[in-house]
């Protein structure tokens, strides 16, 4: 296939027009010895659309998808239902083929959509100000920690071991800058101990991180940490699950300075781990230090309400080597999907989804216990919990044979997540198989 619209005769005419003989004349500024001697061997001439369809269908067919195989995987990416309206809007190519809305007059639709997204994220998290999105939950958390270090001029970031292990890895990677030092808070019973956590908070601490619910689905006690970190003039950063915010206390109500999280479950498909979106919201006090793009409301020359990228003095294209973050492209289209999702389900629907997911998890807990499967931790959880399992990989294999994609494998345990999509029959089948009973 080719997507270049000028046929050879036109190309020749254009070359003549500008006084060149052939296409090679366009590259005389490149040393001959640098030029490629031969073209790459892979798909030399490309494929026709019919061939490429077949090829891609074959590759896609080598994957088992969660539409065909009900899944109990969560661990940071969740199989919540995606209303049909989202896909329809995602196909609007005025949205998906647009660039960043630097030119406000021609980009009001995108700017307004981001402004609405920012408002929805603020309402969900109880924070004052949200940016236009970041790459994902992990990198949003890393940027939050960086902000905390710069704001407090301190290096120590306390991160409980109950935070998602991949978030922890991303934090450590971002730590190479030298601006922050990641200090793990030891945890052993599936949540942190507030006493241990508090004992580690001191005048050198830039931020305390709390993930709610944590990686194991368990609920952490936030209030004491909030008091301790603020007494020491550090920041409280919460990494939260957006669906859970329909029922759990918002970071803003818990005194968080920054709230971040993985926004995938808001209407974005699982897509093997991306593209998702990280949301990032903070208190007004931190507004001018937030990384990434922010849309603001203003007026145009005709006196109409208008939207525009604002507070750009923070950003890399203005501040260059003095910028605190280098982020440029974000996950705008995913943020749009998140907005549409929230409006499609509404406040009541979001709460129903959260409650239903949690009720199905509770039902699963009872069914699993009936089959002799024990919980790994006996802690309050939301939507997701871990069960003890000698050989989780083997059990996942068994589940696959039974037409299901199981849970996340932990050492000697399995983490199981439940969404409103799961049915009673699927959960009963899960319990049978994990209980060692084959189900036919």
């Amino acid at each position, binding site marked *: 296939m080719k997507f270049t619209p000028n046929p050879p005769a036109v190309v020749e005419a254009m070359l003549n027009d500008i006084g060149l003989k052939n296409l090679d004349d366009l590259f005389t500024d490149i040393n001959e010895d640098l030029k490629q001697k031969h073209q790459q061997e892979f798909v030399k001439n490309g494929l026709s659309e019919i061939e490429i369809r077949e090829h891609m269908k074959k590759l896609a067919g080598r994957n088992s998808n969660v539409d065909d195989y009900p899944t109990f995987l969560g661990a940071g990416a969740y199989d919540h239902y995606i209303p049909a309206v989202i896909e329809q809007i995602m196909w609007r190519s005025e949205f998906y*083929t647009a660039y960043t809305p630097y030119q406000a007059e021609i980009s009001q639709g995108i700017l307004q959509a981001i402004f609405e997204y920012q408002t929805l994220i603020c309402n969900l998290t109880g924070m004052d100000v949200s940016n236009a999105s970041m790459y994902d939950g992990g990198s949003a958390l890393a940027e939050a920690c960086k902000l905390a270090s710069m704001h407090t001029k301190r290096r120590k970031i306390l991160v409980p071991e109950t935070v998602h292990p991949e978030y922890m890895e991303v934090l450590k990677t971002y730590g190479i800058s030298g601006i922050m030092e990641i200090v793990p808070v030891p945890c052993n019973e599936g949540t942190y101990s507030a006493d241990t956590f508090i004992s580690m908070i001191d005048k050198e601490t830039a931020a305390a991180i709390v993930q709610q619910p944590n990686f194991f689905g368990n609920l952490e006690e936030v209030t004491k940490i909030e008091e301790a970190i603020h007494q020491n003039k550090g920041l409280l950063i919460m990494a939260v699950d957006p669906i859970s915010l329909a029922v759990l206390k918002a970071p803003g109500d818990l005194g968080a300075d920054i709230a971040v999280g993985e926004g995938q479950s808001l209407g974005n498909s699982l897509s093997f781990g991306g593209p998702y979106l990280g949301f990032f919201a903070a208190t007004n006090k931190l507004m001018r230090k937030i990384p990434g793009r922010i849309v603001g409301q203003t007026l145009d020359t005709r006196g109409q309400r208008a939207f525009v990228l604002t507070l750009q003095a923070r950003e890399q294209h203005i501040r260059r080597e003095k910028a605190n973050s280098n982020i440029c492209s974000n996950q705008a289209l995913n943020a749009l999907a998140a907005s549409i999702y929230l409006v499609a389900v509404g406040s009541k629907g979001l709460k129903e989804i959260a409650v239903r997911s949690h009720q199905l998890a509770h039902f699963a807990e009872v069914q699993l216990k009936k089959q002799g499967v024990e919980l790994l931790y006996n802690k309050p959880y939301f939507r997701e919990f871990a069960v003890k399992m000698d050989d989780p990989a083997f059990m996942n294999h068994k589940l696959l044979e039974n037409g299901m994609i199981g849970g996340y494998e932990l050492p000697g345990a399995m983490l199981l997540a439940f969404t409103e999509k799961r049915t009673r029959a699927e959960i009963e089948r899960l319990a049978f198989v994990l209980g060692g009973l084959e189900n036919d």
Partner: protein
Amino acid sequence: MTKLIFEKHIAEANTFELPPLEVPEVGLSETVPEHLLRENATVIPEVSEVELIRHYTELSNRAYGVDNGFYPLGSCTMKYNPKINEWASRLPGFAQIHPYQPRETVQGAMQILYELGKMLGEITGMDHFTLQPAAGAHGEMAGVMMIKAYHNKRGDFKRTKMMVPDSAHGTNPATANVVGFDVIEIKSNDRGLVDLDDLKAKMSDEVAGLMLTNPNTLGLFEEEIQEIAAVVHEGGGLLYYDGANLNAIMGICRPGDMGFDVIHLNLHKTFATPHGGGGPGSGPVGIKDFLADFLPKPIVIKKGDSYSFDYDRPDSIGRVKNFYGNFGVIVKAYTYIMAVGSEGLKDACQQAVLNANYLRYHLQKKYHIPFDRLCKHEFVITARNQMESNHVATLDIAKRLMDYGYHPPTVYFPLIVKEAMMIEPTETESRERLDSFIAAMDEIAREVRENTQIVLDAPHTTVIGRVDEVTAARSPIVKWEE
């Protein structure tokens, strides 16, 4: 004026529902401690499904994408996004797979990760690729982190500085800073290229490397790239390639052959995946063999016919994001490369460079071009003539272009050129489109002389006029409040 979605709220208008509950009902407060529960409901406007669809359709009508028309944004490579790519990425076998599924159930996805890495390696002359970074700037960060890890591993802790040309994209110096380097700016010479003498003078054993875009942001190929590479390498530094402008040389020559050690690509520029109104992008990073140990983990490996993730990489810089990258974007880029083939990539590059030179040749008649010679995929013109004759600035011309139905070029960049307009037509524009753009630019040049006010007051046909950016920044309103 378009109402905000919040202003369309009607109580109980939302009719979303779940299937009937099949399991015994248990109150939330029976399983979750009361003090952790939210007391106030989240505030989401209630609108009916039809009004939701109309709202976002209306917003889309107030946006402008490549599918709407010509989008000559310099350094952004706004080429056409083939629809077959979109179709492919939405196949359930790609869109509906969880990142933690058993590896045997995602072999097709892993094959794409593996093969795209290999193909990008061949295209760029690099030995290995990671597809983990989510965008160009994210790739830059991963790449510069690898440079830091390399020097650290050698015990060479003195190298705390990163060299960046004054014509560089803003992300380059910002990236160097966030990874913990001090930035040294390298001057451009009177030909718009890296000043080799300045580079030599500033290279030292405290310099970790040089970040370079080639062709640079003026659209000019760094003709002395081999000498530049030698200076940096002999001084013990590494050479970083910002791949934002790869479309200009793809299939003609390769960064790996020029001496670059680390490069990032923008799949959402060169490889035809859409920009999404600001993202998602994808920023794969390629490196030479000697840096392989530092790649972000995991990497995909192939044994026989099966693919797996290798996490056992002790010298890896670690992860830069969760999971494996923006997979949906990766599928689109893979589809694009398979569709056009290596000959098609070269053709894309040639046509992009031809289109740029065609525009440059015709625009020079009315506009000042600071470096008026053979360019690659983009070039820079200025409003100098219009400024001198009628005090009309680049911004005015950019806004006036909207009235003619075009998205403006990148403006006021690169910083080393006053009143810059950076124009990148890409290969997917026909001669007819280019001719009408030239006609519009000529017409605006005429208006500047004969009807100045119409240009100064532009745009006239857009849904809003020019915005008050100063007030927006001084008294920020960043969310809707009743």
